[in-house]
């Protein structure tokens, strides 16, 4: 069994929609690693400020109807979304037997955190300016570990791939072993390709795992991994974890 881990919190944003498969992945990790599930709320005061510009309108989905940008309505909808997400996180934490907390005033992350983000599939978030936490923090969160969950994950499997230099005393291996010992998944440890690119990683995974497919890839820590994590998650439709 791997040694003690540095992580204490598994952090999720409460102001965004939380897909069920993201919640389950977060729950798996929190349960396996014994993490406290924490919901944080990002600052959206800029959006509320915009309601003072009278000519602005809001295109509301999914009906595609235009309405004046109304501060009270934005606040209410934001609150409702936050409450719903908090409830889901609390239920998942209870089911996993871990503790749960919410922090509405502090969305900062530290090295003892694992932050979980859902990758957008079609929506315009990556190309539109917005205040969302996932866009603002996302892969840029250098202080914490991150998990990027694809918007439409591949068929559920029971396989975890850890990209690690060593089978012991490696953060990816350590997390992977703890996870599979709790969930009963299979763990495959693979040496990192050189150079560490998305194409090389996909080739490595296809060659070594075929015909199976991983549900989670644990990359080695580092800026290099963070830069390719999002693309890897999008192209493999698998979750990607980058340790801090």
């Amino acid at each position, binding site marked *: 069994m791997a040694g003690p881990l540095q992580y204490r919190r598994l952090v999720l944003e409460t102001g965004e929609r939380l897909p069920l498969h993201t919640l389950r992945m977060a729950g798996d990790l929190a349960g396996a690693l014994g993490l406290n599930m924490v919901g944080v709320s990002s600052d959206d005061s800029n959006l509320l400020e915009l309601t003072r*510009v009278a000519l*602005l309108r809001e295109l*509301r989905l999914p009906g595609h109807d235009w309405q004046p940008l109304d501060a009270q309505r*934005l606040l209410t909808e934001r609150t409702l979304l936050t409450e719903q997400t908090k409830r889901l996180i609390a239920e998942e934490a209870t089911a996993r037997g871990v503790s749960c907390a919410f922090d509405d005033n502090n969305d900062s992350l530290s090295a003892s955190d694992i932050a979980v983000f859902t990758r957008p599939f079609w929506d*315009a978030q990556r190309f539109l*300016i917005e205040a969302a936490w996932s866009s603002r923090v996302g892969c840029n969160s250098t202080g914490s570990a991150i998990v990027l969950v694809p918007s439409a994950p591949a068929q559920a499997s029971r396989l975890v791939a850890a990209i690690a230099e060593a089978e012991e005393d490696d953060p990816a291996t350590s997390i992977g072993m703890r996870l599979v010992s709790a969930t009963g998944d299979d763990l495959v440890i693979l040496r990192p390709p050189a150079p560490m690119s998305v194409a090389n990683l996909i080739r490595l995974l296809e060659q070594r795992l075929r015909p199976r497919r991983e549900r989670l890839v644990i990359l080695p820590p580092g800026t290099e991994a963070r830069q390719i994590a999002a693309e890897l998650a999008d192209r493999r*439709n698998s979750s990607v974890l980058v340790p801090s």
Partner: protein
Amino acid sequence: MSKLAFQTTRDLVPVSLLTAHRRADEAIRFGMGVSARGFNIFASGPSMARLPSALRRLLTEMPSEGKALADWVYVNNFAEPHRPASLALPPGRGVPLQRSMRKLIEDLRATLPALFESEDYQRRRSAIDESFRGKTQAVFEALSKKAASVGVAIVRTPMGFTVTPLDKGEIVDPDVFSKWPVAKKEEVRQAIAKIEAEMEQSLQAIPRLQKERGEAVRALDNETANFAIGQEIDELRRLFSDLPQLIEYLEAVRADLTQHVQLFLAQPEGGSQERLDAMQLGHPLERYDINVIVSNKSDGPSPVVEELNPTIGNLLGRVEHVSFQGALITNFRMIKAGALHRANGGTIIIDAGSLLTEPFAWPALKRVLTRQEIVIEDLAHIVGFASTAMLEPQPIPLRLKVVLFGERWIYYALARLDPEFRKHFKVLADFEDELDRSPESEALMARLLGGIAKDADLRPLNRSGVEATLERVARLTDDAAKLSLLVEHIQDLITEADRVAAEANHELIRREDIESAIAAQRHRAARLEEHSRDMILRNLAMIASDGTRIGQVNGLSVIDLAGHSFGHPSRITARVAPGGGKIVDIEREVELGGPLHSKGVLILSGFIAGRYAQDVPMSLQASLVFEQSYGGVEGDSASVAELCALLSALASIPLRQDIGVTGSVNQHGDVQPIGGVNEKIEGFFDICAARGLTGRQGVLIPDSNVQQLMLRQDVVRACADGKFSVYPMRNVDEALSLLTNMKAGERNSDGHYPPGCVNAAVVERLAKFAAARKALAASQGR
């Protein structure tokens, strides 16, 4: 018995009960041989004749020529799940089909997730996603660039998007915006309007792109699924290639599996326990199961099913429900076969009495016979109480013979009251109550006894045991010339005798064992009989057994209490006076007399008027009563006794009290046979014996009843020793002669009775009554 040489019943070849019921046997064979609609069978007979077991044995042994046996299964109707489809399969193929389908589902549960998890599938799936992602990316990249070029930005809100002005590449501060000149604000407003319009257009394209992506994914899923599903279904088609009726269903399964492949992908990988759970109620994959409701052996005989509890559900089958997450649910797997399903292709035996007492069962059976198909009907729906989801299973064609059995009155009641009855049950199999007694029938009965003992695992009977049993069997008919076919009684006797034999360490059941068993049977039931006799012996119930008395006679009746019959003497008295020619039946006046008894008394009036009042008017007022009778009186078997009491009273000639009298009389004075003659004789004998037999005591019985005498051995011995007598009589004059020790007398050539006879005394008394009435009428001036 002389026709049969044997030491014990073990030496005899057992014989079917139906051998003794030749008429019924022929009727059943006829009914079973006619396949036309409506030639079902009603077997009527006494319940103690054990009709069901006789029927079962006969029907099981009959050859099953031309019967179309089948296994029946219900399967899901994918188009209309509330109307499950029925399929007929050759016998023995239902369970293999079910097993094959379950294996197919288990195989797919393993192969489909693996297939969809495979790299090949995922690569193609990723390609589809990437294509979609690329298209959306292009749309929004272009939009974002365009927005930035005109100085605005698109911002995400909780429920949508808004377009906001930029100030030096950042979202404008509202305070700064408010200070912008009007012209700049107007320029921004137009830019916002333009981007809003393009954003709306771009967003509207997303659902179309999503739909395209969904269709592409679905097509990939279908192609992938078809690969695995097609192989499995084709394999199943090969296995059941001889069953064209299955092909349509298997193709429906193939289509549904392809359409619902996600049901397999949502299942977790797991071991055998999880695979078994797939067929649990409520599991999404149970839709592919096969519900085998009737399973026959491929080389088995036609089914013969006896339904002991013919409720509508037990006959027609039912659709059960289970509670699932707080609601009552059902599906085709909850269809349960009824007895008609199980008997289809063969025969069903139903107790008519039970059938008629079950609500809605009889009309339901008639509907099935009319439609010639089994439609599962729900009782709750019939009575309007249903509030749960219901199924309408496809009816199953009916090809069977229905054999109802029951008491005769049920047959006749149905024939009289239900016009449809004869349409559905055209064959009557009328079982006999008894056989004519002959050496042949005794031999038959001996073999039957052997069979009963063997089937019930009892000791064999030796020859004396058989003889004693036959005597009892004859006695059960109350007729020495008959043998009872009430097998239930016979088996009860042999069973009890077997126990007696066991206690006596007899290897065979002997005569003494049978007699002990009979005595024990009587003793157990004799409390009331003994109480009745005790009342007489203590003179609380006044019955004289010696001396003479005018207008008083000992009548004899039979009391039957739950199968235990015993003779019971009753004192009958008559009083006479001048009057208007009316005989008062006191029993009838107080409504204790039944119609047959009243009829008997009225016959007496006819007899007296016809014999004695040809020349003078009937100026008689008479009353008749059963003394100390506080219950109902029915039947006319006391009419001879009543007539003797009446004539004794008229003639003022005493009657012997040491003679008991039984018999009915017609208007000519002829004595007619009655029932229960043996019990009546034995009842009076017991009283006389208890008081001391004098040699003068006896019983007068109808001459025609003599042939039925089957008296107890002690009575026979007393008669043989001259201590008791049984006198036959053919007419009332013979009774009068014996009871009065006088000649009854016959009219001579001048039409008068000779003086000194009973009839002359009667005529003389009636003449006096007529004169008295005439004198009374004259004195009153009439």
